[in-house]
């Protein structure tokens, strides 16, 4: 009954091609970051660590990294709090215009980034916050809010509302129910939202490009400028570092989950 359908060879092969397409960029930038020449050309003739040295000694690069991380953490924190609260409100109060508010909160995903960038740049300039950390932060918060609202809403959908009733009848007041029951149970959604928000900010180029100043330049903008203004393999270093970083971030929890599964299995079979 619950037997697995045998996997057909063509399917596996096609998935292999797809996987290759997905990881091909990873396979290429890492060697490129160790190139000796100031060039992106293949094949790579000599190897060196000079671009890594450059990345960690040139304030433009490590400064951009710092800016990106600082802004991403800030944006993710604010977006997570605001987005989670909004998702909870939308989930509970069956508001008459709930769908409209939801649509509004999701708008930043739908609007092409160049449009957002131009508009935000113009308006923020008028407010005097273009080119300030606050401006970039606000833009990234807004951009990240949908990425929090979506997973938190999903988590809330699978949250059994009778658990809240149970908590109430057991003596928990409003705060107790929120902190001790609801929040812990939707926390996977909230954490996913935070990670999404963080990565969204870390990855955003177009708006950050318009809002940049020499002292407020995110890593992706630095990379973009680097490809367009000068031939600088340091971008390969930045790419490799981000690749390795994101791979570790994704793999670690999975690795631990797999290990725990294996341990549990080992315990079950005496």
């Amino acid at each position: 009954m619950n037997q697995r359908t045998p996997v057909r060879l063509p399917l596996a092969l096609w998935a292999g091609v797809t996987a290759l397409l997905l990881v091909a960029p990873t396979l290429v930038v890492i060697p490129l970051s160790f190139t000796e020449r100031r060039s992106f050309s293949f094949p790579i003739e000599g190897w060196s660590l000079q671009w890594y040295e450059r990345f960690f000694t040139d304030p433009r690069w490590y400064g951009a990294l710092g800016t990106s991380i600082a802004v991403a953490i800030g944006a993710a924190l604010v977006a997570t709090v605001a987005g989670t609260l909004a998702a909870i409100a939308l989930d509970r109060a069956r508001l008459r215009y709930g769908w409209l508010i939801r649509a509004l909160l999701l708008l930043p995903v739908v609007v092409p980034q160049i449009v957002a960038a131009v508009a935000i740049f113009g308006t923020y300039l008028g407010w005097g916050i273009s080119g300030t950390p606050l401006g970039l932060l606000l833009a990234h918060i807004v951009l990240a809010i949908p990425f929090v609202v979506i997973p938190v809403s999903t988590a809330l959908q699978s949250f059994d509302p009778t658990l809240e009733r149970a908590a109430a009848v057991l003596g928990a007041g409003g705060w107790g129910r929120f902190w001790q029951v609801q929040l812990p149970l939707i926390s996977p959604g909230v954490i996913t939202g935070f990670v999404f928000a963080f990565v969204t900010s870390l990855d955003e180029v177009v708006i950050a490009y318009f809002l940049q100043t020499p002292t407020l330049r995110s890593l992706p903008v630095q990379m973009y400028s680097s490809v367009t203004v000068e031939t600088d393999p340091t971008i390969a270093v930045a790419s490799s570092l981000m690749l390795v970083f994101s791979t570790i971030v994704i793999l670690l929890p999975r690795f631990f989950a797999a290990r725990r599964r294996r341990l549990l299995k080992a315990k079950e079979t005496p």
Partner: protein
Amino acid sequence: MHTSARWSALLLAPAVLLVAICFVVPIGSIVLRSFTEPELGLATYERLFADPTTLRVLGRTLLVALGAVGLCLLFGYPYAYLMTLVGPDMRAVLMVLVLVPFWTSLMARTFAWVSLLQRDGPVSALLAFAGVPGVTLLGTAAGVMIGMVQILLPYMVLTLSTTLSRIDRGLLTAAQSLGANRYRTFFQVYLPLSLPGVFAGSALVFILALGFYITPQLLGSPRESLIAQVIGVRVERLVDFAGAGGLSLIVLLTTALCLAAAVLAFRPVRAMLGQGGDRR
């Protein structure tokens, strides 16, 4: 537990105010400029539609977005399907293969494609090895499409795999017990059940593809320019905010129209599946 209207307003306030003030106001004001500059009226739109570039690039953008949707389905569906067939460990590996690029900076990936697709680059070499020498994909439509598909594919796979993993495999067994062979089981049962996921994934990929800027900029030639780049030129080269605002509105309306059309076209499917309200 029910929440009072005042409480929910309080909870909604931060997010709604942030989005409204920091996002909707700017978008609104730039769109407004397209109607007020140089004077009140539709002059900007007359100008934009008189320019042959607008419609041509808009049409191209729609085609490219559709192409991206098609290719993402072509690669993503079998991949997501495979994920439902394999064991948990293999599934985790397949998932990581999707997530790693997903979490990797868009700049990094686009840049990697520049290196991969350049003249005499790895892809060229691979094609030469396969017997097709002298092909350079950088600066071609194919190059742009490859880059876009790679960037968009994770969205498709993630959306699809959620739907596919929820399909009750018991239904496939049932279909076989009722006399359907493998292919009929797939086409008459599995595929129709996966359509909501196909639709959701396609809509997502389509919307994202419409706004692509960096990738065609770096991987394509002017002939592959998409609407976002044309908007970029209007702003940066021509300092034409009204025109950019007008184009933005055109893009937004096109997006909305396409989505509405798709939703209408798929209504029978949704109706059959009884979407919505199945949780609570």
